[in-house]
């Protein structure tokens, strides 16, 4: 198991370095823009008045407050996208990538069981995403004050946790599709498409009444609540995201455990 885990973790080292640096730079850029953004808050508020209700709900009413700014910009947009790219890409690659590279046969011809291989991949994914979450958290906490972005450390931590859990849920879905089909591109395409659809349903569901009943099916409904960054821990939201990750993992376990591998 140790050899497997070491191997699974090694696969992510470059991702961690690359995305870690990219993440910190992105955050710095966003934070550096904040003072200017806040100073034109009056204009912004006027602009917000004209935005559809959905956007205001989604991004929070006050985009000029530190919390509102972080929620709408980093946690709701580019930061989230970066995390989803890493999560879906790495999740899809974990099993299906090895199968397509024809390295899986030799790996599974060792005493390692399929379940152990899958588990090591999943653990490595969780560690990767959590580490990136910690980096995102630390960068805002440490550099934020330099740009007048003072946020409560606990709120920031819980928001980072929600971002991590959402990413893990999507990573788990991508891992499951990849492990079940052996096709990396299928896993990426289906998971990305699902994420996009979920995002739209959640965003439009706020105003479009017909979509409202479907909002709970969107993981972003559970992630991007208006409470993010201000409301403390939301146990139900955490439970939903964890449950989705667990169900996807269980499905991967069952299907990958008995499937014929491509040679």
């Amino acid at each position, binding site marked *: 198991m*140790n*050899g*497997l885990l*070491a*191997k699974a973790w*090694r696969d992510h080292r470059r991702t961690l370095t690359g995305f870690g640096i990219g993440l910190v730079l992105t955050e710095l850029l966003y934070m550096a823009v904040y003072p200017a953004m806040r100073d034109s808050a009056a204009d912004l508020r006027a602009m917000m008045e004209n935005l559809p209700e959905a956007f205001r709900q989604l991004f929070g009413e006050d985009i000029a407050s530190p919390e509102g700014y972080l929620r709408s910009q980093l946690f709701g947009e580019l930061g989230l996208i970066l995390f989803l790219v890493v999560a879906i890409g790495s999740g899809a690659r974990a099993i299906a990538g090895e199968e397509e*590279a*024809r*390295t899986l*046969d*030799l*790996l*599974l*011809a*060792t*005493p*390692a*069981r399929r379940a152990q291989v899958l588990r090591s991949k999943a653990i490595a994914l969780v560690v990767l995403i959590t580490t990136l979450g910690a980096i995102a958290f630390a960068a805002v906490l440490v550099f934020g004050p330099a740009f007048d972005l003072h946020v409560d450390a606990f709120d920031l931590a819980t928001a980072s946790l929600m971002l991590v859990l959402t990413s893990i849920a999507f990573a788990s879905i991508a891992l499951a599709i990849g492990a079940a089909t052996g096709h990396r591109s299928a896993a990426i395409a289906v998971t990305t498409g699902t994420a996009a659809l979920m995002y739209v349903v959640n965003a439009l569901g706020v105003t479009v009444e017909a979509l409202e009943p479907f909002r709970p099916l969107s993981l972003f409904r559970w992630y991007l609540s208006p409470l993010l960054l201000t409301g403390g821990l939301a146990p139900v939201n955490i439970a939903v995201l964890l449950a989705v990750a667990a169900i996807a993992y269980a499905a991967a376990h069952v299907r990958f455990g*008995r499937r*014929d*591998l491509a*040679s």
Partner: protein
Amino acid sequence: MFGFLGPNGAGKTTTIRTMLDLIRATSGHVRVFGLDSIADAPSIHARVGYVPGEFGLYERLTGEEYLRMFAALRGGTGADRIAPLAERLSLDITVKIRELSHGNRRKAGLIQAFMHEPDLFVLDEPTQGLDPLMQQEFHAMIDEARARGATVFLSSHVLPEVERVCDRVAIIREGRLISVDDIGELKSKALRSIDFHFEAPVPAGDFASLESVVSARAHGDSISLVVRGPLDEVVKAAARHPVVNVETREPSLEDIFLQAYRDGGTA
């Protein structure tokens, strides 16, 4: 030393991958060392050295990192044999795998299968891509493993390789086991063709009556024979005429298959 012979697409690789639980049989069970191929996979795999016909390696690792990983997956067994085996096959294990040539990648795959001194080798077309010198070294390694008491299960679609290392041969075709034979018996049963080129035309009848001749055909100064079994009579019959040239063709695998197929059908 067990050879597993069949044309491309006959089901050799499928059989092997079922043995190693990489694919599952729709029905039936596979037992290796008397153990169930699915339930006891880890215990089986610990004692098997597997070289697939085609495989990928972790491009970003060095050969040494790659092989050490496999040692770790087998509980550390074989780590001390990495360096000696690499030296023997002259593989530089300090460079990244992505920089290795095709032949050198095959070597890494071979070391991976040999390093833990398994009881059973499962080799799927193991020498393709190896230069002749390395093929020789590989055969020496196989011989040593055999001397140690290991079993070798060698799958191939080329007869000479199987002939060289195996005692017994199974032939598979379209997923069905056609025959299991000693290699000598297989070859003696096989048809082979011989062309004699004489100075002057010779009647085909001189040969057609011989016991081991299956068919004889004359064209011009030549006679084409299809022979099964001992060649003694045939050569002596030919020697009564002035011979210009002799061409023999080793029985092709397809010939042997056809033969085995026919035998299997009538048995």
